[in-house]
């Protein structure tokens, strides 16, 4: 079909029917949104981060709304890999969409073990490695912002799977290109940019932070320009496909990400605001391609004009 093929794209070794995915942690494992939208129409579904053991997560309140954004500190609550393989994955497999499993670990070994388990499973298009959850601090290690750890960990995960490997980087670093470069060298197939930005919000009457975890991760429109800047910087220098996210609410926002260099995009917080956002964006992009007479979404990727004046 003509329309379909214009959105088809291969991304880091995954054949995506369209480049609009839904972000980890904002879509659960699909079941709930399946009531509201047709999951078959999505380019892909990225699962909530899965850990080895079930994990309770942070005390409430876990969410706070801020100007144009959402602060969250869920703390990786999930039911663990066993439950995922037993209940979640079989459900997801029913749909004609690419399933990307997001994994998170509290130790390097845990990442490797999770990878090994997922190697066995069927119906997984790729792994997304969450190295950057800002809301869980085990001994203060943030795998995504220590160059040495990042390198070693990505290498180890790479060595333990043939699945396409997307590395989700933390935006809470000084030089994102450096970290992207490390992930590339260590064998990543693609980069996920960006995770949430560390933030804080305070109730001035109670003097309490609005989140029990004190700080949380900022998502939504507020971080869009930050995400775009990082994606553009990485796109220029690192030869890996980028899965862009951060505040995409509507078609125009998604287009900005493609033009900045994203090869696919993920819709996160927007799902909460409008469960149909991802489907509307797919439609919107088709219209845009029509209007501008582009034959494929590929024609706009990274096409930011920077020397035109």
């Amino acid at each position, binding site marked *: 079909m003509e329309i379909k093929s214009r959105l088809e794209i291969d991304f880091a070794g995954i054949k995506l029917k369209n480049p609009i995915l839904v972000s980890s942690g904002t*879509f*659960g494992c699909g079941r*709930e949104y399946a*009531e*509201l939208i047709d999951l078959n129409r999505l380019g892909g579904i990225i699962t909530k981060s899965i850990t080895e053991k079930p994990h309770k997560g942070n005390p409430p309140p*876990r*969410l706070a*709304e801020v*100007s144009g954004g959402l602060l969250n500190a869920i703390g990786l609550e999930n039911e663990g890999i066993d439950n995922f393989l037993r209940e979640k994955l079989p459900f997801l497999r029913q749909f004609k969409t690419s399933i990307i499993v997001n994994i998170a670990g509290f130790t390097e070994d845990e990442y490797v073990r999770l990878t090994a388990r997922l190697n066995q499973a069927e119906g997984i298009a790729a792994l997304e490695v969450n190295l950057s959850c800002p809301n869980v601090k085990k001994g203060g290690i943030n795998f995504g912002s220590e160059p040495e750890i990042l390198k070693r960990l990505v290498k180890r995960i790479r060595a333990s799977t043939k699945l396409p490997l997307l590395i989700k980087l933390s935006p809470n670093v000084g030089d994102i290109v450096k970290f992207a470069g490390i992930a590339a060298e260590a064998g990543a197939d693609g980069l996920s940019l960006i995770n949430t930005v560390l933030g804080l919000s305070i109730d001035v009457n109670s003097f309490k932070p609005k989140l029990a975890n004190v700080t949380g991760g900022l998502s939504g429109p507020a971080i869009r320009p930050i995400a775009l800047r990082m994606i553009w910087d990485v796109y220029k220098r690192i030869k890996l496909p980028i899965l862009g996210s951060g505040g995409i609410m509507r078609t125009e926002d998604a287009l900005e990400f493609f033009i900045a260099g994203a090869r696919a995009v993920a819709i996160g917080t927007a799902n909460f605001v409008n469960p*149909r956002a991802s489907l509307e964006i797919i439609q919107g992009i088709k219209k845009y391609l029509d209007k501008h007479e582009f034959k494929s979404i590929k024609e706009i990727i990274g096409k930011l004009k920077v020397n035109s004046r």
Partner: protein
Amino acid sequence: MPSSPDNIIQIKAKILSHKKIAPGYFLLKLDAPAIAKLSLPGQFVHLRVLDSDIPLLRRPFSLHRINPDSIELLYQLKGEGTRILSERKKDEMVDLIGPLGNGFDLTDIPEGKNIVLIGGGIGTAPLVTLTEGLLKRYDRAKLTFFLGARSQELILGEGEIRHSGIDCLISTDDGSYGEKGPVTRLFEKKLTDWKGKPGMVFTCGPKGMLKVMGSLSRRFKFPCQVSLEENMGCGIGVCLGCAVRIRTNQGRDESFEYKRVCKDGPVFWASEVIFD
């Protein structure tokens, strides 16, 4: 508690009427037959106050009335979201997801015992449509409605409750109407007056009040359902943002698990909730 029905929809609903019914309180009637048809008392809708990035998130509101073709929400001005909502006019459209959550459990109420509803402030909102449901099954003489608020003009729904012939007991914090003091104290007084324990208590209101109800329900061993509130992201169970602590191990120790107000609730057994 019953689990949340899977059948939820997203619609654009026309505002049929929208009026201020007390200082800072509004009644919003929406043309939403499809949602009305699916709805149960105690469920809620997730409403987008405006198609804008600010406020970003939807706002949850309990079903105050479930009519054949429409639903009604009773809400209180709180912050920017409700302020913007209050400016929306008749005939404008609002985006709704619903019905959400489990709703009150009406399956296990022992025959012949008292059934009590306790609404604190805006907490009365979900109890009104519940009354209608209860009246279909139980003798009105068995129902007692406790209404509490800061002061007289904030007592909501009294006329309607009395009209349906239900006993209505009132207290206000400032004593401007009914008893003076918290509505839980009035309830506790009656509790000792009554012969038997209530067969079921339904309650909704500010956290402090629900906490007291939790203690009372454990102390006097009556079943009590509370409708909880927590900040929400998705409203449908995916983001895990609306967690509350629920006792496990029958409350025998400190152990608990997190449950989602939006999906596992909003109605929980008061005795099982760990209030901060």
